[in-house]
């Protein structure tokens, strides 16, 4: 395992050197901008900057993180890099403090061919074999440093790649090679396979791969992927099966997803794969807080969902999902119903009911969301969420409530009041309140200022979860594109 050769060395960096590095970086950035503006018109640039600064009064700590992405294009070539600052990173991040150029790449693309050398993200199939991705909100970044080759043809797509994936603490793992071939003999039927070969320090040479097929029809579709691993004999065999199917009967849409993952957590430092969870991803805070952490070593389950426009300007959705381990222990179960209605004109309503059950407790949820167009550019939005919890082990009961009221003017600003309350006696605090201002400026700037308190809680995206600690203070996020 190696540290990245071109990034920060850790918290022991000389502050004066980091200052010079920042100045040099900005100077180069300006130079490139000026060159592309004044010079050859074929030289184009795109960039964005994401700045997050927070002052936590409770812990008396300040966090400053920044990501600057910049790419320069000339004809079929693209050069890009990402400069990052983590001084220090948020407490739920596994990154170490520091700054530097964390990503850089050179890309050549012409016609149906795309070749990139440097850092990239990618996915094979539905992620059973490989998924490299970034979810910045949970500070999850598993980019690959290597080479990637994509070729698109009317009859097939080919993807070949090799490199080292990054784990969450910034360490690059062993070199791997991977690829995917997708055959498209007719537009309705696709099938193919993917593979990955690498070496685990603890196991020696390992590989895994999958076969998949997809059938599309105007009345529905079916996707099936089955993956197997080839590990040394002394280690347990494993497999992963994922299937999803949509069926359309007029406006009625039915969805079935099935998963069966056994000994298929493919990790050494970095987790290479990230298969679908077959669990509904929710739109609201309290429902989303009870998301299960995916365990691809021992998980079986399914999701059923139906949606239908019962009235004009309305959609009703019902879903049920269930996950258990190989010992038939129920890990997660959810019943959910939602009604969206746009009535009368200028009003929008969403009502949702849900029952979630995990290893800890049973949760009953109710959500009401109301939006109103006050005038052409002004609008109001009120969201109320209620969750009743009953803990299995002790029968302890409590409820949580979240409410938010927002007032917006398009396209410039929104001001929101946010509040949360709990009757949970274990919690040190029973009320949290904050205010948030979101502003769009000059098309290019998005500024968010939050002040107040935020309750700690699990934050999950795509089956990956972090525990975000309690916060009290001010948080500023500034995004701009150039």
């Amino acid at each position, binding site marked *: 395992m190696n540290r990245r050769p071109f990034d920060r060395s850790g918290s022991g960096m000389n502050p004066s050197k980091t*200052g010079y590095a920042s*100045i040099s970086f*900005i100077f180069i*950035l*300006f130079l490139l*901008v000026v060159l*592309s*503006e004044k010079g050859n018109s074929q030289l184009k640039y*795109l960039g*964005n*900057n*994401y700045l997050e600064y927070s002052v936590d009064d409770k812990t008396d700590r300040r966090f*400053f993180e*920044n990501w600057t*992405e910049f790419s320069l294009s000339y004809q079929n070539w693209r050069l890009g890099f990402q400069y990052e600052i983590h*001084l220090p990173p948020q407490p739920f991040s596994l990154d170490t403090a520091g*700054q530097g150029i964390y990503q850089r790449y050179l890309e050549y693309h012409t016609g*149906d061919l795309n070749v990139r050398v440097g850092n990239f*993200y*990618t*996915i094979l199939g*539905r*992620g059973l074999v490989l*998924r*490299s*991705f970034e979810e*910045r909100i949970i500070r999850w970044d598993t980019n690959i440093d290597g080479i990637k080759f994509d070729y*698109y043809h009317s009859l097939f*797509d080919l993807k070949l790649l090799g490199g080292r994936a990054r784990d969450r603490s910034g360490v690059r793992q062993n070199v791997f090679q991977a690829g995917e071939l997708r055959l498209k003999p007719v*537009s309705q039927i696709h099938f193919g396979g993917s593979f990955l070969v690498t070496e685990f320090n603890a196991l020696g040479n390992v590989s895994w791969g999958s076969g998949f097929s997809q059938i599309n029809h105007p009345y529905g579709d079916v996707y099936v992927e089955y993956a197997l691993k080839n590990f040394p004999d002394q280690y347990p065999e494993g497999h992963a099966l994922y299937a999803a199917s*949509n069926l359309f009967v007029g*406006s*009625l*849409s*039915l*969805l079935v997803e099935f998963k069966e993952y056994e000994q298929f957590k493919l990790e050494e430092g970095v987790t290479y794969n990230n298969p*679908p969870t077959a*669990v509904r*991803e929710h*739109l609201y805070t309290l429902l989303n807080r009870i998301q299960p952490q995916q365990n691809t070593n021992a998980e079986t389950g399914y999701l059923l*969902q139906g*949606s239908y*426009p019962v009235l004009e300007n309305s*959609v009703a959705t019902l879903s049920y999902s269930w996950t258990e381990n190989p010992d038939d222990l129920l890990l997660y179960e959810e019943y959910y119903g939602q009604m969206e209605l*746009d009535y009368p004109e200028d009003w929008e309503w969403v009502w949702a009911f849900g029952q979630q059950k995990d290893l800890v407790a049973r949760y009953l949820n109710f959500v009401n969301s109301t939006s109103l*167009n006050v005038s*052409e550019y002004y*609008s109001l939005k009120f969201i109320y969420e209620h969750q009743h919890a009953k803990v299995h082990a002790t029968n302890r009961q409590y409820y949580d409530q979240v409410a938010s009221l927002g007032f*917006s*003017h*398009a*396209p410039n600003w929104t001001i929101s009041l946010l509040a949360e309350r709990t009757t949970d006696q274990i919690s040190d605090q029973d009320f949290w309140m904050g205010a948030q201002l*979101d502003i*769009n400026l*000059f*098309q290019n*700037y998005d500024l968010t200022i939050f002040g107040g308190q935020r309750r700690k809680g699990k934050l999950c995206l795509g089956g990956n979860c972090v525990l975000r600690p309690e916060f009290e203070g001010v948080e500023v996020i500034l*995004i*701009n594109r*150039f």
Partner: protein
Amino acid sequence: MRRCIVLFLLICTVGAFTQETMNNAAPDFVLPDLKGNNYKLSENLNQGPILINFWATWCVPCREEMKKLKDVYEKFEGDGLQILAISIDDPKSVSRVRSFINTRKYPFIVLLDTNSEVMQLFQAENPPYTALLNSEGIIFYTHSGYRKGDEKILEDKIAMLVQTKNPDDKSEIKDE
């Protein structure tokens, strides 16, 4: 740390001075549609304005915006407007995209960017993110997030593009 913050606020000011550079060519890309066929941006230019909207089934403002984009599409369909609704739903939720579109009868070209690679090419951070291209593929207007009323500004921008394409058309264009 204070010095770093100041320095990066300086970087942020680059955006203010380079707003004119919105006139960049959009990066070309290839993405699969809901039937698995590849859609290549450069092969679909010169038909009219192209509205690219990055969205996800789990994103509340995206869902609100898509309802309005349907009206925008119906208004400018005759002018050759293409709406590319690029879903960034990951493998976890991508199976739900077609169901979502079918129930709501959205007439857009829906593409799947399951690893957000194309969204990153557009330097977009979070959905919803909208980029309006002229028929030659030059970025004319971008906007992130959605507030009720944003679609009216978008309609004005599309009308400006259509007007540029058809200068003889004297239909009224609202001031921003």
